[in-house]
């Protein structure tokens, strides 16, 4: 975004925050609350749930959370611009099927992976085209492409599964660093997370996404190329979902049309839980990562405590609702407290 001469104006609410001391600005945020919640749940679970504190648990927790962690990064971009992408899990499934079909046909796996990523870009471009150039609402568009991409994935493989992949890659997808339990794939995740965080928070493009989510027109007049920014955000969800599809296939050693069905809602739940506003223009990547981990830790702890893993849905649902209601509840609380002090005077 070289054409961005004028930095987008910060939101009025963000400006008012500068009246408060630095530590309050850093600690009393949504993101910190989620991070504290992750730590709390971790500590409680480690002391209460048997075997939770082991490196094996940590390893599986991270392996399981990786696809959501990856896709949540570009999804944050999309939601910050005020759009949404429901097709990510279907793109994951499509990429998984392609990887299977291509390797079965004798394509070298490295080439197959590149093709998957290119298809991911194309798929993102389809969404981006329909949303930005055709001007259609992203909610409706991506419900359509959710069915379309999943349909192509299921259509290509039917109910069969392809389960033969090079052992090297399958092992790599599950490998841990020595005894630490930390999966090797976390290197990729961390690199991606750092890149996305820097782009979102420290580049004109990233700041432009926030400006765009707060007010499309203001952003446009400030020199943000609105359509291009949204288009890029959709390209990113496409390619990262395809990457997550490759990982999913190798990690579970199985390429199936119905891989990761419904994962889009888990990703969106995690992003919103992490403090990103569904209206756009608000959020931070460290909150999102904490949101994903919070769900992952809860899931893992409840599973080890022999609670049916699906029952965690109640917790995720309640957390999601509480998290979107909490600003409103806080606002009420704030409105109550100053009025009380004034009355005392």
């Amino acid at each position, binding site marked *: 975004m070289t054409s961005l001469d004028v930095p987008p104006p910060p939101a009025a609410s963000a400006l008012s925050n500068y009246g408060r001391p630095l530590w309050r600005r850093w600690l009393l945020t949504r993101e910190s609350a989620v991070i504290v919640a992750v730590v709390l749940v971790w500590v409680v679970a480690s002391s209460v749930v048997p075997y939770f504190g082991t490196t094996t648990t940590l390893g599986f927790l991270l392996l399981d959370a990786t696809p959501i962690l990856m896709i949540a990064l570009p999804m944050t971009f999309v939601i910050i611009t005020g759009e*949404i992408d429901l097709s990510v899990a279907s793109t994951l499934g499509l990429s998984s099927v392609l990887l299977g079909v291509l390797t079965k046909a004798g394509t070298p796996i490295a080439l197959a992976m590149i093709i998957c990523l290119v298809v991911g870009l194309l798929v993102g471009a389809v969404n981006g085209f*329909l949303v930005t150039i*055709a*001007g*259609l*609402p992203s*909610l*409706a*568009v991506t*419900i*359509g*492409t*959710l*069915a*379309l*991409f*999943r*349909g*192509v994935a*299921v*259509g290509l*493989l*039917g*109910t069969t599964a392809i389960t033969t992949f090079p052992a090297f890659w399958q092992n790599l997808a599950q490998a841990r660093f020595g005894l630490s339990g930390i999966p090797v794939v976390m290197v990729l995740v961390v690199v991606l997370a750092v890149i996305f965080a820097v782009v979102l928070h420290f580049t004109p493009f990233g700041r432009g996404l926030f400006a765009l989510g707060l007010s499309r027109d203001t952003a446009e007049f400030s020199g943000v190329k609105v359509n291009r920014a949204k288009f890029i955000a959709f390209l990113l969800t496409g390619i990262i979902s395809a990457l997550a599809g490759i990982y999913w296939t190798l990690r579970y050693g199985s390429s199936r*049309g119905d891989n990761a069905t*419904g994962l889009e*809602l888990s990703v*969106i*739940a995690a992003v*919103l839980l992490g403090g990103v506003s*569904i*209206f756009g223009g608000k959020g931070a990547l460290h909150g999102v990562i904490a949101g994903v981990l919070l769900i992952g830790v809860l899931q893992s702890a409840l599973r080890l405590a022999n609670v*049916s893993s*699906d*029952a*965690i*849905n*109640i*917790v*995720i*649902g*309640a*957390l*999601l*609702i509480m998290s*979107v*209601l909490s600003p*409103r509840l806080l606002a009420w609380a704030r409105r109550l407290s100053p009025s009380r002090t004034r009355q005392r005077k």
Partner: protein
Amino acid sequence: MSPIGTVRPPANAVARLTGHFFRSRETGILAALVIVIAVTTIVNPTFLFSPDGFRDLLLTPSILILIAVGQAVVIITRSVDLSVGSVVGLTAYLAGRLFIDVPGIPIIAVFLVAIAAGAVLGLINGLLVAFGKVPALVITLGTMYAYRGVNVLWTGSNRVNSSDMPKVFLDLGTQTVLFIPSLTIIALVVVLATGWYLRNKRGGRELYAIGSDPDAAELYGLNVTRRVLVAFVLSGVLAGLAGILFAARYGTTNSQTGTGLELQAVGAAVIGGVAIFGGSGTVYGAAIGAVLLLTINRALPILGIQDFWQQAVVGALIIGAIVLDRLLALRLSRKLTSEHQVSHD
């Protein structure tokens, strides 16, 4: 859809009605449905011209029609209800449990309890949306998880089988009255009653006004909160009705009943011309959209397309429908602009 208002009405009522018929958005989708049925019947006459074929044609979409009608009403107010699939699952299991736990319970009582349960779940959605001032997408995503979680906790790995339910109840799911399945009659009554209310009653018109411009509706003095609540309760009631009919139709429910129905319902409404940002569309369109969705599903294998491709066709259909709506809207706005200019000359 009100393109009718821009065209000078023809002199007599018949011409006006036929004119309306040919211009309305629902006619297009109905034509598509007729073409699908006609082509499939030519390939395989038993698709329509056999007792079972005719019955299945009407019976299969009945449950989705109910949910699509509720969804359409919610979408018209510029909300969305993603929890319907979970409500169907909960009420279906509730119905089954009632037959097991309360031997000899009258069927009508089970109906009332299931519908009341749906109403309560819908009311929870509505209250959270109306008083939390949070987008329905987030709230109902949360309740979708929460309701499903309750279902899983309650059901566990149990299931209700057809042997647990009275035969009279199960017959209701498949019996026909004058060649028309009773489920279809129920769906038809719901569609007509809701359609009539939306078109002719003050409350119905207010739903459109709220969806077109919530702020203007509020300024105008409409009771937005109450209307939105009613829309969500209606969606819950219809999902509850769909749930108990699901139990009757399929004779078995478990903890995963109704999963994914929410996206089908939104898809049906969108295909039927209900704009995702509210304010336009009819429940008739949504109902025809539901029939088209499920009829295509059944037609594809007959047409020699592997049924794995069903979902891809559905996705293409949804995207086609929103592109079409966009083109129609553009044409309408061009027409309005030119008429505006003419009247000022």
